[in-house]
């Protein structure tokens, strides 16, 4: 489509030609003529015409939002093992679905080879999925951008979900943007909070943020998803909406949302989705998938994390941190400063550009507390900071602060660790 010139009204003044950013208009016999190949429907010429001789191009077709229903979760699996974040998202998706309406379902979408995903369908149901869409094909055995994008796009077009959630994993963050571009819809990256009802958004904002909620109406019944995420290295939080296109899509940070209790007896529907994929659709070849031989750090699942920073003074400080972590049954973490200094591998890094964690106890040892570090750990249940510098920002978020030499303090904590119960009992008497 393009703009239309009403020939009878055109006076040949050429104002529209000057207004056109795309050289799509020219004069033929003193009347403006549109080159439809060049016109982009920008309508820049319309108000410039003093004679009402230009009819605006029709607005792009509005998306019928009501045609889209239900909450989908991309149930990411690798080698037949479901990712924890997928189960967290099924839990969260269920909460959101019920905020939309009673008959809104949460649906898990499993993509992979039949033998890998068939056993996972019931697991998704046990964790709260009302329905499971199974998209199986031998070509989908391993994740490829091309293959997964093709089949999920087809499924979205057929079933029209209202919301699609993905874990913000290395796969989810490769996959979701591709889908968003292909479906011409919005995508919000790495969300840490989702709300449907304005009332629950207000409740969240009041409890956790400095946001002035007086401009929000708790009785607002709109059900667009409000996606909250950190930006500028966690210095700022932004809530993003996607008002005009569907599905609304988010990638969600692993470890943030709540899994539901597993219910082995839960019932749900399993739908086999037909695939239409061929070898030619996939333009890369996976030669090998290697599990890292390096020490497996599962910071996201750890109950206790012992993290070291630049205050350790030198790389050997991590030996003490390791000893500490071994004693308390924790995992070794680090600040970005320690990683940048080359003292420890990036896989240990906690923070905005590393891993986001929320253990029961976070020991920050010799970590000053740069904002980008705080962004990745400040939701830990209990934060213990040990630092020589009493003014270090880490003490602002710490539940327990110890101003002192970590090389003296940590060995004492290790020595007394097993006596904790006795010490506590003695203190209450």
């Amino acid at each position, binding site marked *: 489509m393009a703009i239309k010139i009403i020939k009878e009204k055109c006076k040949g003044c050429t104002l529209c030609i000057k207004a056109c950013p795309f050289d799509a208009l020219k004069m033929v016999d003193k009347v403006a003529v549109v080159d439809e190949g060049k016109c982009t429907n920008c309508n820049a010429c319309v108000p410039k015409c003093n004679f009402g001789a230009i009819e605006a191009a029709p607005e792009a077709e509005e998306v019928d939002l009501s045609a889209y229903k239900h909450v989908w979760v991309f149930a990411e699996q690798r080698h037949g093992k479901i990712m924890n974040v997928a189960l967290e998202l099924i839990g969260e998706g269920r909460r959101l679905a019920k905020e939309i309406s009673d008959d809104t379902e949460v649906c898990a979408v499993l993509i992979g080879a039949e033998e890998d995903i068939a056993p996972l369908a019931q697991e998704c149901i046990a964790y709260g999925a009302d329905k499971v869409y199974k998209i199986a094909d031998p070509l989908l055995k391993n994740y490829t951008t091309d293959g997964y994008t093709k089949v999920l796009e087809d499924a979205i077009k057929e079933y029209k979900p209202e919301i699609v959630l993905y874990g913000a994993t290395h796969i989810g963050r490769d996959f979701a943007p591709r889908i968003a571009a292909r479906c011409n819809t919005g995508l919000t990256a790495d969300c840490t909070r989702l709300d449907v009802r304005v009332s629950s958004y207000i409740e969240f904002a009041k409890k956790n943020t400095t946001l002035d909620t007086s401009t929000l109406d708790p009785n607002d019944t709109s059900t667009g998803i409000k996606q909250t995420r950190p930006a500028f290295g966690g210095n700022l939080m932004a809530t993003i909406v996607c008002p005009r296109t569907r599905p609304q899509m988010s990638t969600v940070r692993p470890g943030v949302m709540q899994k539901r209790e597993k219910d082995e007896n839960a019932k749900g529907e399993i739908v086999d989705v037909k695939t239409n994929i061929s070898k030619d659709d996939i333009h890369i070849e996976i030669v090998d998938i*290697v599990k890292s031989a390096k020490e497996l750090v599962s910071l996201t699942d750890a109950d206790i994390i012992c993290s070291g920073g630049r205050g350790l003074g030198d790389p050997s400080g991590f030996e003490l941190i390791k000893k500490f972590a071994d004693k308390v049954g924790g995992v070794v973490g680090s600040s970005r400063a320690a990683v940048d200094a080359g003292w420890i591998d990036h896989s240990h890094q906690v923070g905005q550009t590393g891993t986001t964690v929320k253990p029961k106890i976070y020991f920050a040892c010799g970590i000053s507390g740069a904002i980008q570090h705080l962004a990745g750990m400040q939701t830990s249940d209990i934060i213990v900071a040990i630092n020589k510098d009493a003014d270090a920002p880490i003490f602002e978020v710490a539940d327990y602060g110890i101003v002192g030499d970590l090389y003296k303090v940590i060995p004492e904590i290790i*020595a007394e660790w097993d006596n904790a119960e006795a010490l506590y009992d003695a203190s209450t008497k």
Partner: protein
Amino acid sequence: MAFKIIVCAKQVPDTNVIKINPKTGTLIRDGVPSILNHDDANALEEALKIKDQYPDTHITVITMGPPQANDLLMECIAMGADEGILVSDRAVGGSDTWATSNTLEAAVRKVGDFDLIFAGRQAIDGDTAQVGPQLAEKLGLPQVTYVQEFEIAENMKDITVKRALEDGYEIIKIKTPCMLTAIKELNTPRYMTIAGIYGEKNMKTWNAKDIEVDLNKVGLEASPTNVFRSFTPAPKGKGVILEGDTEKDVAKQLLIGLKGKHVI
């Protein structure tokens, strides 16, 4: 025929030095230096390494931003890129990742021929990691993100990369033309050279008209996502500083506290 690489780069505020005004809860951007986004520097470095090996390689850096983003192009050229293109127009301001990728798509199409597009995985101001894949999709290119090792065969067609995963990596083969996004493990970016700093700079600025982008697909209005609200996180309530005569005292107090909260 010379191998042609396009590098997408972004000028960003250094988020490590950003401070919050505690009274207003807003970002203090004054005096915050603008820098070449880290991952993008890794993308450029990898392109430069190809050029080290095959000197007739041509590297074009494309950036989108206000006129001051020319500084970034100068820096990239001083590092060794051949030319820099700034796409700058009020019409593309306020774009989200979808709209940004439409703008970059148009700019890449205007550049024309290329064999490879390198971008950083994500920019430190937004941390979305979405523009690379979205640009690849618009251009119909295959992609590999999180590239931590790169190798190109002598035929300048077959590329092998190592793609980082949370718990390991994948080895992937891909052919040009394609889009790759770099992470910092890929390399260590070089410094600018003196000759590069003082040398002539092949730089252009294009506006929306130059790149012939559909104005209905760029800018704030066209973006499918909008900012609903923005705010600063609430500071956590202040805890207690443990004090005692000896480290042992303090350690004991800590353990009593932790036990009392039932976390150990």
